[in-house]
């Protein structure tokens, strides 16, 4: 049984990755999961300087999922390169670094620093975080802005770039095409869906930020639809995510057109989720006589 997939010339041993922000830089979950077995680890967003993030409460559970407004707290590129990257490089897995910023220059600075680093396989550019006031999503909601930042990062980056798209747009296909036209090597989607929760007894917002990004199994149908639309709008590979809890969910994304999948919020519900998703994909292949996982990509019958 073949489980390898290739994205922008980078071959992953299997299509299972972690979704940025749900897996730290791998260290915390390495107590639960053998990172060597993952297709790739996608790190939490890394900025040019440390970011403190938002006030608490930052997380709230909702029916079938959760809201978060962490605000991209991260130690910045220096600590990432000194501490987190050397840790990840000990494992036989692909390393994809999620890059965030407030200005285009911030993104370029991080991309440049990562370009000099050994052992970074790809960059994922976060232009879709709904929880920070400047940067991030401001670049990901208009095709022109997305085109501009994508082309500028592409000129600087030494590694292939994956543009992570927001679902909080009118036309995901248009956004996908803009990123592709600007030189993106791959797309990943969906980031979280903007949501809100109110505590009716306290008459207060559940999150200090009022709004937060929704993730978890409840958003999966939205994510499958958007992955399908994006994958059919572009020729570059698409990485699908949004509520994946098991192998069957992952296969659904592959059939919709994803080349690989990421497990996000379900890591919190089950720290072994990534490996169970991988085992589930393999079990499906076995049961359905699929020799090569690539046969599944976009194979839904029209």
């Amino acid at each position, binding site marked *: 049984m073949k489980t390898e997939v290739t994205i922008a010339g980078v071959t992953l041993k299997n299509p299972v990755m972690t979704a940025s922000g749900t897996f730290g830089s791998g260290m915390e979950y390495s107590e639960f999961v053998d990172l060597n077995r993952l297709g790739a680890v996608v790190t939490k967003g890394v900025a040019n300087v440390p*970011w403190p993030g938002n006030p608490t409460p*930052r*997380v709230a*559970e909702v029916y079938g999922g959760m809201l978060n407004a962490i605000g991209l707290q991260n130690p910045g590129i220096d600590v990432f390169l000194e501490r987190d990257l050397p840790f990840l490089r000990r494992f036989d897995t692909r390393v994809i670094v999620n890059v965030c910023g407030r200005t285009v220059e911030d993104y370029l600075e991080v991309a440049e620093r990562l370009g000099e680093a050994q052992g970074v396989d790809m960059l994922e550019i976060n232009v879709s975080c709904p929880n920070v006031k400047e940067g991030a999503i401001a670049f990901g909601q208009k095709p022109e802005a997305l085109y501009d930042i994508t082309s500028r990062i592409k000129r600087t980056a030494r590694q292939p770039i994956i543009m992570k798209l927001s679902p909080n747009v009118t036309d995901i296909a248009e956004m996908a095409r803009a990123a592709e036209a600007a030189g993106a090597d791959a797309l990943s989607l969906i980031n979280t869906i903007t949501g809100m929760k109110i505590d009716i007894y306290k008459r207060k917002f559940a999150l200090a930020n009022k709004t937060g990004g929704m993730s978890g199994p409840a958003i999966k149908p939205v994510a499958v639809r958007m992955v399908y639309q994006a994958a059919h709008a572009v020729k570059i590979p698409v990485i699908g995510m949004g509520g994946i809890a098991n192998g069957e969910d992952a296969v659904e994304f592959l059939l919709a057109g994803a080349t690989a999948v990421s497990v996000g919020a*379900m890591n919190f*519900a089950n720290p072994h989720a990534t490996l169970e998703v991988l085992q589930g994909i393999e079990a499906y292949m076995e049961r359905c006589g699929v020799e090569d996982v690539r046969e599944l990509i976009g194979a839904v019958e029209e």
Partner: protein
Amino acid sequence: MKKISVGRILSQREIAPGIHDMWIGTELAREAGAGQFVGVYPRSAATLLPRPISVCETDREKGALRLVYREAGAGTREFAACRAGEEIRLLGILGNGFPLEQAEGRRVLLMGGGIGVPPILQLAKDLAGRTAGQVNILAGYRDGQLFLAEDLARYGRLYAATEDGSRGTRGNVMDALAAHSLEADVIYTCGPMPMLRAVKGYAAGAGIRAYLSLEEHMACGVGACLGCVVKTRETDSHSHVHNARICTEGPVFDAQEVEI
């Protein structure tokens, strides 16, 4: 070592309105220390996150862990409906726990408020015989339902405070502290944020050490998501931004280290 394990509920009863007392047979009982916590997973697919619940008591010989929790939402409502014999999924053991060595040979005051009372029980047990004189315990409640009071009284001198004045000192634990003129070299506490702020202020004024067990909404429980942070005086070890993770660097912090 943190891991997922399955425990078996040994007993469950409601010890005050909305307050439940659950004993679980689990290997975690042998490593669980005072002030540490477990993530308890509800079974409903509508829920996602483990519920952080602090260690109330352990029976290391029997391999039993006691959790006393308040019914606060869908998850804890589900736990409350569980009966002896059922299995329950646990993530643990989590958090740093209370620094017991700071109590060595010192006069110790333990303060618990509301659902912050349960973790004080294992702490009082673990401190037995290590402190200067008997441990004083202040426990604050809403009303006369003094849950765990009898257990606490076995390991120290208990002073209760109730908001409605039905038992002990009328008011909160700070009122009871003043009423009994208690003195201490070190305070350990767990309770609602206004109480923790008051204890921090009191300890600073009195020039004594205080250790606060903090609570915050959590997602992963293992330090990955950065959902549960507290502002710290010094830069934190993880993100270098004065925001320590309550689940990992905490939940117990030196009062001087946190800005609450």
